[in-house]
């Protein structure tokens, strides 16, 4: 190994260490920013080292690519709204996967030009894997993006024979790969493989409902890592393998957490076309004969303002109504009155893992007030008042008690154990899962009807008057 190659190899090793150390620093909000910066330094070093590689002789096209990519990336990163974070991460996943697929396609085209005989088994297998995983990540991510952004309907898109067709596409991909690896590097079949891979990404995401997108985004995150990893096998570069598998495992862990929070298996999420996709679009209406107690701002303010402890349960409805800043104002006001305020965050409160925490952090709520489900559930029995803003299924006690309920077994926030419950909600409509919530009819529950933002603002002005 000559000097330049050694320098490159050692720089890659340093970059890999910085990635792992950077992620480790993400274990606490206090050090997370430095962790991200270290990972970015690692990436910069890896890119710089690659540029001195002897394989690279021409820089003009590279520079064009880097400049365009950096501009698009930077502008998107600064402009994106925090509520739109899931679709942005989705799109970025897609770009990462797409890049890996393109690298593998280009390698295939180059190698096929160099020799007439079959290419090495290792190389051709990893090329096929890289193309399939990368292309599926690319097209799947953009369908997920479309669903989250509202360009495509959030409802599961299904048609007769869908599962059979999907299975056939997948089987064709396997057969084509085997043929291309072992028998002949036929160009038409190769392009067919590329096309079918992109098609499969689309077909794989369209039957999944909007409410399940957190799982899909996490899974595609894992895929984008795996795509980079397989591309690493193709170009025989260890840094791609290391970084790719780190991302792959991160995505896997998050996927597993999301599935557990919804009490569903990954297979159920991917293949069951579950949920209506749009909040409030549930078909089952309240039966009407059960009594619902509603309160006005003044009464709600009395209960909140004179409580000793309050737990606020935010759901995506709060974020959709842009009520975060009003909620922060309410929190500060209650704290100044000596009320102990905490937030209960369900793992699927937002549209991606940890999304709600980011939305509340954006509203300048200190992260020390935000509590995970397991920590806060033990506190509800001693809580004077729980204020639910735009959450529904994650507080439905049917998940604990009603075996016939579709959400039975899903871990929920035990809001029903609090001494008083105030629920801010537009109407009695059902949530994502389209199921009734008996909590609304609990004698301890007061429904505070209206839009999240206006209602919290009214609450703020009433508490001020106390």
């Amino acid at each position, binding site marked *: 190994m000559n000097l330049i190659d050694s320098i490159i190899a050692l720089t890659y090793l340093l970059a890999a260490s910085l990635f792992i150390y950077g*992620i480790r620093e993400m274990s606490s909000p206090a050090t997370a920013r430095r962790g991200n910066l270290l*990972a970015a330094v690692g990436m910069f070093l890896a890119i710089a080292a690659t540029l001195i590689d002897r394989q690279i002789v021409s820089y003009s096209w590279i520079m064009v690519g880097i400049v365009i990519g950096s501009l698009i990336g930077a502008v998107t990163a600064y402009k994106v709204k925090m509520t739109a974070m899931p679709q942005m991460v989705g799109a970025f996943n897609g770009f990462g996967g797409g890049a890996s697929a393109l690298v593998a396609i280009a390698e295939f085209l180059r190698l096929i030009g160099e020799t007439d005989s079959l290419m090495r088994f290792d190389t051709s297998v990893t090329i096929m894997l890289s193309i399939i995983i990368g292309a599926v990540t690319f097209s799947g991510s953009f369908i997920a993006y479309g669903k989250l952004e509202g360009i495509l309907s959030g409802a599961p898109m299904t048609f007769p024979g869908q599962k059979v067709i999907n299975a056939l596409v997948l089987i064709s991909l396997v057969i084509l790969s085997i043929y291309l690896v072992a028998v002949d590097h036929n160009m038409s079949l190769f392009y067919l493989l590329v096309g079918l891979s992109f098609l499969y990404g689309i077909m794989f995401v369209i039957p999944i409902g909007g409410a399940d997108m957190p799982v899909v985004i996490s899974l595609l995150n894992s895929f984008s890592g795996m795509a980079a990893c397989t591309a690493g096998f193709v170009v025989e570069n260890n840094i791609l393998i290391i970084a790719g598998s780190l991302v792959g495992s991160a995505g896997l862990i998050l996927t597993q957490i999301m599935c557990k929070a919804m009490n569903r298996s990954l297979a159920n999420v991917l293949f069951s076309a579950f949920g209506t996709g749009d909040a409030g679009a549930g078909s089952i209406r309240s039966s009407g004969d059960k009594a619902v107690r509603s309160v006005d701002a003044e009464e709600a303010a009395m209960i909140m303002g004179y409580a000793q402890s309050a737990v606020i349960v935010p759901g995506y409805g709060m974020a959709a109504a842009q009520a975060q800043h009003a909620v922060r104002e309410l929190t500060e006001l209650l704290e100044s009155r000596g009320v102990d305020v905490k937030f209960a965050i369900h793992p699927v409160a937002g549209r991606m893992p940890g999304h709600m925490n980011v939305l509340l952090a954006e509203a*300048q709520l*200190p992260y020390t007030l935000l509590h995970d489900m397991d920590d806060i559930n033990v506190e509800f029995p001693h809580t004077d008042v729980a204020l639910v803003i735009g959450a529904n299924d994650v507080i439905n006690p049917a998940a604990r008690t009603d075996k016939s309920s579709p959400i039975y077994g899903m871990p929920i926030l035990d809001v029903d154990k609090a001494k008083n419950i105030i629920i801010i909600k537009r109407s009695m409509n059902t949530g994502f899962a389209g199921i009734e919530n008996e909590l609304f009819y609990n004698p301890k529950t007061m429904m505070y009807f209206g839009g999240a933002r206006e209602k919290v603002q009214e609450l703020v002005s009433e508490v001020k008057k106390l």
Partner: protein
Amino acid sequence: MSETLLMGLTIFVLAMFAGLEVINKVPPTLHTPLMSGANAISGIAVIGALLVTGRVAPTIETILGVIAVIFATINVVGGFLVTDRMLLMFKKKPSEK
């Protein structure tokens, strides 16, 4: 199976374990930044894209390579910047600026 492939697989398995180990320690409150940060790291495919693009005189592979460089750079630059933007918002106390 070639030695390179075996070496690659070894590194892959060990890196997966290292990843599972460090990522399991990340608290739920940081899961979104973790994901976007990890996302930026998956832009490492840029290395492969650079190698493909810079190799020879312009061919069809170069065009694919340039698109790959653009995609991966969006992923890297956008991912790290947006993660930084998010992490900047996480404060311990409201007064802390």
